[in-house]
Structures are given as C-alpha cells and as structure tokens.
C-alpha cells in the first residue's frame, strides 16, 4: 500500500491564526462594553457596522484576487480591524465615516499591500488617520461621558444620529461648557493648556474627576484588563505593550516633573484617550510591528515616545494613530538592525 508522505514535523500545536485573532477580539469586548456604558450605544453600532462592511469588502477583494474567500473571512483579521476602527471613532459619527474608513482599511491598506501579513501599516490606524484628516469635525466630536452629560443618547437616538446625521441636534449630546464644545479629555486638556490654563485648572472642569478623565479612566482600565488576559493566554507578547507604556510613563513623568502646570501627569496620560487600547490591541498587531523581542521593545517604546510628543506638542489631541503609523514605518528598519544573536554566532547581525 502507498503510505502518506509528509514533511516533518508531523505534529503541530493547535494554534491557529483564527484562534489568536478571536482571543484578541474577545479580550477587547470588556473595553467596548465599558465604552458603551459611558458613551451610549454608538460605539457598538459603529463596531457592528464596521464589521459588516469589512467582511463584505474582504470577501469581494478575495474574490477579485481569486483566493479562497472562506479562509480569509475565517481568520478574523478583518473583523479585528473593523472592531478596532469602530472602537476608535466617535460613537455618534455619521455612518458613512465608518464605512469609508473600513473600506479604506481593508481594500487599500491591507489588500493593495498584498493582503494579510504584507501590509506595512496597521489598517485600522491608517484608516483612522485618513478619516481624521478628511473629516476633522466628525472625527473630533466626541460624546460626553454619561455622568457629565446632560443627556445620554439612548439606542434609538444613537441609531438615528448615526444613520440620519443632522436629523437630531448633536449638540444635545455634547457637553456645553462656556459655549465651546469639548471632545475628549485629551482635547480639553490640550485646548485648556493652549488657552493658558494650568493643568490643574483644566482638570477642575467637569470632564475630570480627581485628576482623571471621567469614563475614559474606566475604559482604559477595561482595555488594560483585556490586555492582561491576552498576555496570560499568550495571544500577545509583553514587549510591545510594556515598551509603549513604560516610554509613555517615563516621558510624561519627566514632563510633569519639569512643569506640572503645563503637562499632564503620567497617570493622566496612561489612562486617557486610547492609551491602553493602543498598548494592547493596536500596537501589538504583529503584522505591522517589529519581529524580534528586542525589536518589539524598541518598537513599543517608540510608539510611547511618539504618543507623548504628539499629545504634548503636536496639533492633534490624541496621537495613537499617528504614533503607530510612524512606528510601522520604522519596523522594517528596526528588524534589520535588531536581530537576535543566532546560536554559535558572536553578534546579532
């Protein structure tokens, strides 16, 4: 009889790309839930919409590229991209924002670069940056967290706000303070500081509670928890997250020590905006990160530094997307210069 011929090894660990992605997605859900608690149903709707668009786009592109559609959909990478983008954009942004963003992420950033594994940039972040530049108003109009808002959008209001933009008065859901609309605490801080207020004065605003951003703190905590679970499950490795958080902590620490009046505290930075989301879910995207352990520490630290620099000195309130993209650009370089020392060799390269 003929026997089957295969190449060693004949056993493999039952880890699948899909499993890894599923775990990441599951671990992001607590954060999403907390986000919904504070900012209404908007985020969930955005996420679902994004996932639907992503799956359709992925299937269409795979069909065009004459690849197996099922395999691509089954690896959950498109779902994860959509999830991250849906989480990142303002909950009540009009529907076409997320649709355009998702299409851009899947079709251009991912597939035009050769598909999963070949894309240079993190698709979700690239799309986010595109949206931020193309639709600055929609992309910076964040809903006020529930405790601070006069009205909290319910499900119906969220749906109508998203799908029939302009039908309701979005300003209802915004936090009106001194006639200005505030987006996120980071934005508030930035604007406040630029108006000559000290950070303490800014933190005295109703968006903040004991120096922390209302809502955002818990959202970040949820993502941190999800990230720790991922670490425990082995879905991600510690280097990138640690590198990023440590760098951000150190940078903001130095800034805060130098001049507490014009700089946010390290804790403020670590638990504001998308810090934790980025540290555990975005920067850790393996495709676009550096590959060696040391390289990943450097990669993470680079993001941390960039986040701080852009937040503190740049023109945009939150910097995660830009920082991640810039670090993506550097990843091949880092990989080239930071190689582990092979057994029996003296040095790395």
């Amino acid at each position, binding site marked *: 009889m003929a026997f089957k011929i295969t190449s060693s090894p004949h056993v493999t660990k039952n880890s699948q790309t899909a499993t890894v992605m599923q775990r990441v997605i599951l671990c992001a859900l607590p954060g999403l839930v907390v986000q919904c608690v504070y900012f209404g149903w908007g985020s969930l709707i955005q996420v679902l919409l994004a996932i639907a668009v992503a799956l359709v786009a992925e299937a269409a592109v795979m069909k065009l590229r004459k690849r197996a559609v099922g395999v691509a959909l089954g690896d959950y990478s498109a779902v994860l991209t959509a999830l991250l983008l849906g989480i990142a954009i303002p909950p009540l942004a009009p529907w076409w924002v997320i649709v355009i963003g998702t299409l851009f992420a899947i079709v251009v950033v991912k597939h035009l670069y050769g598909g999963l594994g070949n894309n240079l940039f993190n698709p979700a972040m690239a799309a986010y940056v595109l949206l931020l530049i193309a639709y600055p108003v929609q992309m910076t109009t964040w809903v006020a967290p529930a405790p601070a808002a006069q009205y909290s959008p319910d499900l119906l209001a969220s749906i109508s706000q998203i799908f029939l933009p302009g039908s309701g008065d979005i300003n209802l859901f915004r936090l009106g303070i001194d006639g200005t609309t505030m987006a996120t605490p980071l934005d508030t801080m930035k604007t406040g500081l630029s108006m000559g207020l000290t950070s303490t004065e800014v933190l005295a605003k109703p968006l903040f509670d004991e120096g922390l951003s209302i809502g955002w703190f818990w959202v970040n905590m949820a993502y941190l928890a999800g990230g720790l679970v991922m670490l425990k499950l082995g879905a991600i490795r510690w280097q990138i997250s640690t590198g990023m958080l440590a760098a951000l902590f150190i940078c903001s620490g130095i800034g805060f020590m130098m001049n507490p009046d014009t700089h946010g505290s390290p804790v403020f930075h670590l638990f504001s905006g998308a810090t934790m989301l980025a540290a555990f879910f975005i920067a850790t995207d393996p495709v676009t990160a550096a590959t060696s352990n040391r390289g990943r520490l450097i990669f993470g630290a680079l993001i941390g530094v960039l986040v701080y620099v852009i937040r503190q000195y740049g023109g945009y309130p939150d910097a995660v997307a830009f920082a991640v993209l810039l670090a993506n650009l550097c990843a091949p370089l880092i990989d080239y210069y930071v190689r582990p020392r092979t*057994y029996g060799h003296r040095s790395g390269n």
Partner: protein
Amino acid sequence: MLTNLEQLDNGVVWRIPGGIHPPEQKHLSNQTAIGTLPLDEYYYVPVPQVGEQASMAVAVGDHVLKGQPLTHGLNQHHLPVHAPTSGVIKAIEPRPSNHASGLPVNTCVIQADGKDSWVDLQSASLETLSNDDIVARVQAAGVAGMGGAAFPSHIKLSPASDIELVIINAVECEPYITSDDRLMREHADKIISGMEIIHQVLTPQRIIVGIEDNKPEAADALRKALSASKLPAGVARVTVVPTKYPSGGEKQLIQLLTGKEVPSGAIPAQLGILVHNVGTCAAISDAVLQGKPLIERVVTVTGGNVAQPGNYWMPIGTRVDHVLKCCGFNPEADQKVIIGGPMMGYTLPLIQVPVIKGTNCVLVPSSAEMSVDAKELSCIRCTECAQACPASLLPQQLYWHSKSGDYDKASDYNLRDCIECGCCSYVCPSDIPLVEYFRVAKSAIRNANEEKLKSERAKQKFEAKQARLEEEKRQREAKAKEAAERRQSNMSGGDKDAIAAALARVQAKKAVSAATPEAGADRKDKVADAVARAKARKAAQAAQSDSPAPEQNQANDAQKDKVAAAIARAKARKAAMQSDNEAEVDTNQTSAASSQKDKVAAAIARAKAKKEALKQALQAEAPTDSDNKSADEAADTLEPKADDRQARIAAAVARAKAKKAAAKDAGVNDPKGQIPEQNSVDSIAQSDPGELSAEEAKKARVAAAVAKAKAKKAAQQAGDSKSTVEDTQAESAEPKPEVELTAEEAKKARVAAAIAKAKAKKAAQQAGEGQGSDAHMQKQPADVNSAEPDSNSEPADVKPEAEPSAEEAKKARVAAAIAKAKAKKAARQDGEAQRPDNAAPLNDERSEAMSPDTDQSEQAPAQSAEEIKKARIAAAIAKAKAKKAAKDAEDKE
C-alpha cells in the same frame, strides 16, 4: 578551557532559548521491557559504502554466519556491516532505502536459515587493550552513532584535538521514542561500561550524562550503575535537564550542560567536547569487550495504529513491514509510517525497507495523533516561530527569503544554523511548513556551492594543464626558431610593399570605422563586452575547428591553437584580477580621438608584421606574380593592383604614421617604445614600432588581460548567472554540444560573431588605452584568429544579446572589414611560418597571448608553395564569408 568544572559537577543546567513542549506520548511504549521479534525470512542489509570505502567480502550464494562481516574496508572511513543472522546471500543489488526518498541503495539480501548461529566472537578485557586496539575493535564492529545520524564511532574516538568533556546524550527529547529510556533502565551497566571505555581512550576530565526529567527510572538506573563503575570518582555524573524539545540536539545539549555554544560551522570537538548517544555507549561496550558487532539495536515501535507498541531488539536489516506485521499494524487510509519521532522523523514511501543503525523508532500514528493537513496561510509575523527557535533564528524572515528564492538573504539570516528541529513549524499559527522551505533553500544553496566548487576544480585542473602545455610549447618554439634561423640565411632583400601598404590602409580604415561606434554609450560597451566574451569562447572553438580549414594546419595544430587561445584567455583573466579597476577608470576617461590614434598605430604595426611575413614567404617560396596579385585581391578589394613604387611610397607613409602613433603611445606608456626591436633581423622593418620590446610585450599582455576582464565583467553585469561555468568551458575550449542551432540561429550567430569581433576590438582598445595601444597587438591577432574560418562550424553559444540592431549592422560592416583583415592574416600566417625573426623576440613574453601566430611559426619548415596558394584561397573564402556576414546583418536590420 573548561572553566566551569565546578558548575558541571554541581549539575548546573543552563538555559536554552526557544523550544517547545509537544505531547510526549512516551507512555505508549515505555511500559514494557524490550522484546524481540520472530526471525524474518529475508534481511536487507544496505552496503552503501561498497565501491567507495569498501568492497564486498561475500558473494551471492555464500553462506554467512551471524556477525560475519559483509564488507572489506578500504580506508579509515569504512564502517563495516555484518550479517544480522545466519543464512545465504541471495542478492547484492540496489533496493529501496530507508530514507525519505526511498531511493535504491546497494543492498545485500540475506535469506535467513533460521538457525541464527553466530560466528566466533573474540572477547577481550579492557586492561589488555591499547587505545588503538579499542578504536580498531570499535571500527571492526561497525559501531555508528545510534541517535540518528549514524556517524562512525571510531572516528569520533580518534579526535584531532584533546577532549575534555564527554557528554552522553540520554535526553531523548522526541515525543513517542523510548528506546534509550528502556535501554537505560535495562542495560545501564552496559552503558556505563561503554563510558569506561570512552574514558580510557579519550581521558576526558568529565563525563556527563544528560537526561530529561521525564525519565526518572532511567536516571536512577544510570546513577546506580555509575556508583558501581570503575570510573575514577568524580569524573562522571548524571545531570537531569528539564523536559523540553529539542534539548537532545547536540548543540542544545552542550549549551544546556556547559553554557557554551558550538561556533557556527564548527564541531563540538573544537570546544573539547564530544557527544555520544547512550545506545552508542552500549554498542561500544559490546564491541570492545565481547567483540560483538553492531547487528542489532533497540527500536521503538509505537503510535496509535499498532496493537503492541513497545521496544524491540531488531537485527539491522529487519524489514519495516515485518516489524509492523509482528506488532499488529492496523493501517488506516492515508497512513503515515514515520521513521524517527514526530518532530524530525521522515515518512517512508515504501515499508519494504530495512531497519538501519540510526533507526530508533518506527511510528505509525493514527490520524488523530498527527496534525491535520491544514492549508498554509499567510504569515502574520506573529514571531511565535522566532520565540520557539532554539537557534535564535528568525524563521519568518528565513521563510520570507526562502520562499522568494532570495537565498543570499536567507544565508544572511544564518539559514545554515537551522538544525531543522521543526519547532517553528510546530508553533506556526498559519500552518506554514517552515522547515520544508528551509530544507529546499538549504539544498539549493548547497547545489549552488557545489557548482561553484566544481568549476573551481575544473579551473585548477585547466591551469595545471595549461602550465604543462606552455612548457611544451616553449620547447617547440625554441625548435622552430632554430629551424627558422636556418631558413633565414637563404633570404634576400626585396620589397612587396604594396601588400603591406594595402594592409596598413585597411587597418587604418578599420580603426577609424571601429572608432566611430566607440563614441557610443556605455550601454553599447556592455553589450560589446558580453559579445566579446562570447567571441572569446568562439575563439577557442574556432581554434579547435581550425584543422579542417584550408590553411595548412596539421592535425595537432588545431589543438595547439586551442591551447594557445585558452592560455591567452587564462592569462588575461589572471591579469584582469589585478587591473580590473584600473581598466574601468581608464575606459571612462578615454577620448575617441586618442583611441583612434592608438588603433591606427596598432593597425600599422600589425600591417608591418604582416608585410614582413608576406615578403619573406613570397621570397622563400618564389611565388608568381599572379599569386601575388590574387593574394592582394583576396586580401582587399579596395586595393588596386599597385606597382612597386607606389607601394613603396605607401609603405613609407604607413611607417611614418605608425611611428608617430607609436611615439604617442610611447610617450604615455614607455619611453622605450621607439627603440627598434634589436632582435629583428629584417632590415626594412627595423624601425617598425610594431616590433615590440620585451617589456612592451608584457604590457601589451596586461592590456589584453584588462580588456578581457572588462568583457567578463560586463558579461556578468548582463546578468549571466552561468558565467563562471561558461567561462570555464570556454577556457578548456570545449564547445557545448548540447546547444543545437537552427539555421536561423546559425545565421544570427554569424552576424553576432562579426559584431563580436568589432566589439572585442573596441573593448581591447578601450582597455588598452590606459595601458597602451599595445592591447591591440594582442587582441587583434586573437580576434582575427577566432573569426571567420569557422563560420560553418558556428559556435553554439553565441550570446542571444548579440542580436543585430540597426546600430549593430554598422558594426557588422566594420566586422566585415576585420574579416578581410583576417583573410590577410591567412596569408600572413603563411608568411609567418617563414618568419621566425618576428616571432622570436616575442617568444617568452608575448607568445602566450599571441600564440596563434607563434604556433603557426612552429611548423615553418612544413611550408610549400602549394600550401600558400591554398591559404590564399582560404583567405578569399573568408572574405566572401565576411561579406555575407555583413549582408546578413543588413538583412536582419
């Protein structure tokens, strides 16, 4: 060297990177004692060394006893094989091997007689044996490494350097396999006795047994046996290492136990470390103390699809299908039969293959135990593979480069340090068969290296041959010179300058026209150089096919020519190495004008040489006027019949020009350029700058070499990856028979040849300018030589890039002119045969580069009037061909 004896003694275990923990599955087979199998009917004993290191000691039909050697060794690398049972030799023939490929290997088929009767074994005691005796007994017993690689143990026991640490590998980290485990439990004393023998031979400071912590019984058994051993106290110990695959890899085990790494490309012996497997220790003990050859070993038979998994003593040569039958094999669809473990073992395509010395396990898993054939997905760069790699490689990068065939990059990422352990494939979530990619890449790299080595060897062989031939040629030349000198005395002065003048004019014209395309771009140069190389090859062939040409060559002349051409090329290459850079710069700085001048000078010089030759030839052989005329016409249709006076004037002009050119050259190159050749006997040509001093000749050769080097380099740039190989072939002047030309290709080739000539000249000239116009003197004859006569035996390997373009057609015309010149050469060659004075001064220095000419002079005495006539006809034919080539080129256009 071993600074960490203390740590060794304390059993310190170092960390190794990577590694995995696949399901062990050892309980399947390690529960029962080692059994034996019923005798098989036939045993297949592979004798792969026969023909290389060994010869058969038995013949078909012989009756052999168990343990009787089947092979005679011829050298130290011989690993004897023995009959595993008593019986009759039924056949000695290729049979499928126990290998992933199943490729047949020479096998001795023994039909068992069922008695299993032993030969007499010579037992000995350790005290009475010298080290050499021990090693000899180990070799005689055919002991080989039993961990899988089957490296001859006697070689390991006679290392070149001191061994300070012997590691006994008892790790057995592969899942499923328990043969060492059971052997240690049941025969620990034998293993320890083997260690004693190794200790006696190598006297290492320490012997450490490394064993994984999942085999506590075996470790205990070893410790117990060790405490009862005769080994000096403190020398040996058992060190337990944590269970992790692949701790049992030689390099990994060394790292685990000593913290040291075997340098890449080195062997452990260089660290003073030697690693033996426990099974090998037991076999060494048997061999040395009992004289028992290695004819059986413990093999694990396991997996979900055998009814009685376990360990069995198996004679070497037992067929795997017999083994499985005895163990209750229950195959399923798509059954795999794996030799070795699931991580590094290989599947057998056929199971009628023998158990061999390195076989430690036969694994027949159920499909549930093995991985499903998942589809390979894209790499998501998760770097799980890099985390798992025990060699700290970056498998995803290796994969990337291996897959795209970028093997240089893969090598840059240390592909060769991959031990093919399979950890990376094991963990890859995208189910990429990484190891398979690495194997493919490694073998591709290996093949490429072998190719390189082969051509290197061919080159060396050729150079040796060339040196020999050169010596022979020198001797012949000396003889020819002597003969020519005798003839010289018969000569009287006279002038047939017309011909010479015509030649000079033609050359000058040619030089001008050749110079025109030279003004062209770099790109053209590159093409030209590539073509020149093709031409060089053709030259070799042309030289070879010269013998049937109308010139009065003798049979061995062709060979001489060939050799000469080859030598010239070889020399050129050698010189090229030194002057490559120089030549490049020079070429870039060359102006068209100066090159033209050089060219003119060279042409004139050559014309002079020819003139002399002709004159002498004509005088010596007293040709008729009509002969003279026809030669003239054949040589150059542009040249009307000239009377003596005109000719003399022309010659005078040509000489003057030549002088001027030479002076310029000399000004740049050599103050001696204008000094007439002292050895020259010919009074007319005495001021001829064409006669080079020895030193100039040398320079000229260098210049030719530079030209050649440039050509070669350009060819490489043209992306010819086979260049080395082809060059070598060209050098040895072997036409490539495998390339067959169609009629059209032949035509093309002819055109190409013509172009090539022009190009080569150009290359020579460009290169020469840095070094002196002398380059021409060298290059030109070679060019001409290599040209037309063989247009019907077109070289097969003219480059495709030589296809004519509009621009090239022009060049082809130039080539036609050259061909004409060549026709003249035919005449000249006749002449040169009579003109030793010309060749003589060049003897030592120039002869290699110009050998086609000097070769001609060698058989000077063989000339006859009739032959000269023939040569002239040949010249005419050549010219016609040249014309045709030009026309072809135009047609093409």
